[in-house]
């Protein structure tokens, strides 16, 4: 089970986290791995709290839910309050500093990144904050390759938005690069 990676992407409805989860799971398949994605449904998916979970493994994936994520993305204060404690010891938290002001103490690495602000100010659309987050997450965790992530992203966005999304992904990647060095 050494290759098993578990991710939780959390925030509020409308931030595109479920689509982001699908894109990571898709990218992992393009990298030749197994992946599984699940999400919270119903009223939650239409606003309020939202979460998507992804498991990536070289082998068969049995239990499809994530209890203690290795990688946790929090894009709202509420999500960070709710999920920070679940982090696997030694895991990674990526917090969108645009919305998360007080991240609870965690036993792991923390990256505070201005994800939504960057999407809003440098791409001109906060809507692509999820893609900025994807870029940052991929760079920090190495969980999927940049090529696979780009392919998966481009296959699941509306035609005509390719440049916008590529730029968002790149900004996320650069942001993480800076944070790492």
């Amino acid at each position, binding site marked *: 089970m050494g290759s098993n990676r578990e991710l939780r992407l959390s925030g509020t409805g409308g931030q595109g986290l*479920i*689509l982001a989860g*699908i894109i990571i799971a898709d990218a992992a398949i393009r990298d030749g791995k197994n992946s599984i994605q699940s999400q919270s449904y119903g009223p939650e998916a239409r606003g309020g709290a939202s979460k998507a979970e992804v498991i990536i493994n070289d082998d068969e994936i049995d239990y499809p839910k994530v209890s203690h994520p290795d990688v946790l993305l929090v894009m709202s204060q509420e999500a960070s309050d709710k999920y920070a404690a679940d982090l696997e010891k030694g895991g990674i938290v990526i917090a969108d500093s645009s919305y998360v002001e007080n991240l609870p103490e965690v036993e792991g690495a923390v990256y505070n990144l201005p994800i939504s602000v960057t999407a809003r100010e440098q791409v001109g659309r906060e809507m692509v904050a999820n893609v900025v987050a994807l870029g940052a997450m991929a760079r920090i965790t190495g969980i999927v390759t940049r090529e696979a992530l780009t392919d998966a992203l481009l296959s*699941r966005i509306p035609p005509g938005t390719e440049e916008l999304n590529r730029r968002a992904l790149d900004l996320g990647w650069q942001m993480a690069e800076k944070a790492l060095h």
Partner: protein
Amino acid sequence: MTRELDSYLRMDKFPHMWCPGCGNGIVLRSLLQAINELELDQDRTVIVGGIGCSSRAVGYLDFNTLHTTHGRALAYATGIKLARPELNVIVITGDGDATAIGGNHFIHAARRNIDLTVLLFNNNIYGMTGGQYSPLTPANSKATTAPYGTIEPSFDISELARSAGASYVGRGTTYHTGLLKGLIKSGIENKGFSLVEAVAACPTAFGRRNKMKGGADMIMWQKENAVNIKKAAQMSPEELEGKIVVGELHKQEAPEYTAMYDNLIARVMQQAGGGSVTPLKGN
């Protein structure tokens, strides 16, 4: 060339189950006359019934026949017609079947204007279960579940069909058999949802509790109380009180559901040929 009506019946299933004086046989004869004059192909015609005395008629008819669950005949018929629009689909139902338990299916089939012809035997009562009141039982009538008289108002089912979207609505009685046959013919010919309401006597479960003597007397009541739609147009609401308006009540050309669906398929397939069918969303 018209034929003997017996050739449309499963004669080995007779005698039928209806009571002496029941109007159902008369309505059935009008239906067969209409089918005969239109020369419908028995193999290409499906007759669907619900549950109740009238719906049992389908068992006697030599067509593709389907005797369904209570109230659901129109939903079954919708599946048949949409699957094979080239078939003639006729629905036989009663007042309780179509307007109480099947009321929702009735208004939605009318709304879609799907090409079904509904022949509604209106005997104002649940006959098969022994005389309980239906949504078409006139107010102040007696029924086994209304021993003190009904206090509920009744539907005007023809009016309901028209407002729900039916493109053809007619009402006849078992006295006016020629009119009834003509209405059924027009209903079948109409490409869309057609309702033909046939006022039929139930002496056993309705008549004898409501001071009507027998089947023949109830037919005479129909004769005396029916007013043709043309004459009714000249009458005041007070004059029409307690009367049955008969004739072709509504006719309006409107797009038919299965034809529209076939157009949709053609449009989608053409787009698919051009490679521009909307891809499935990932979310």
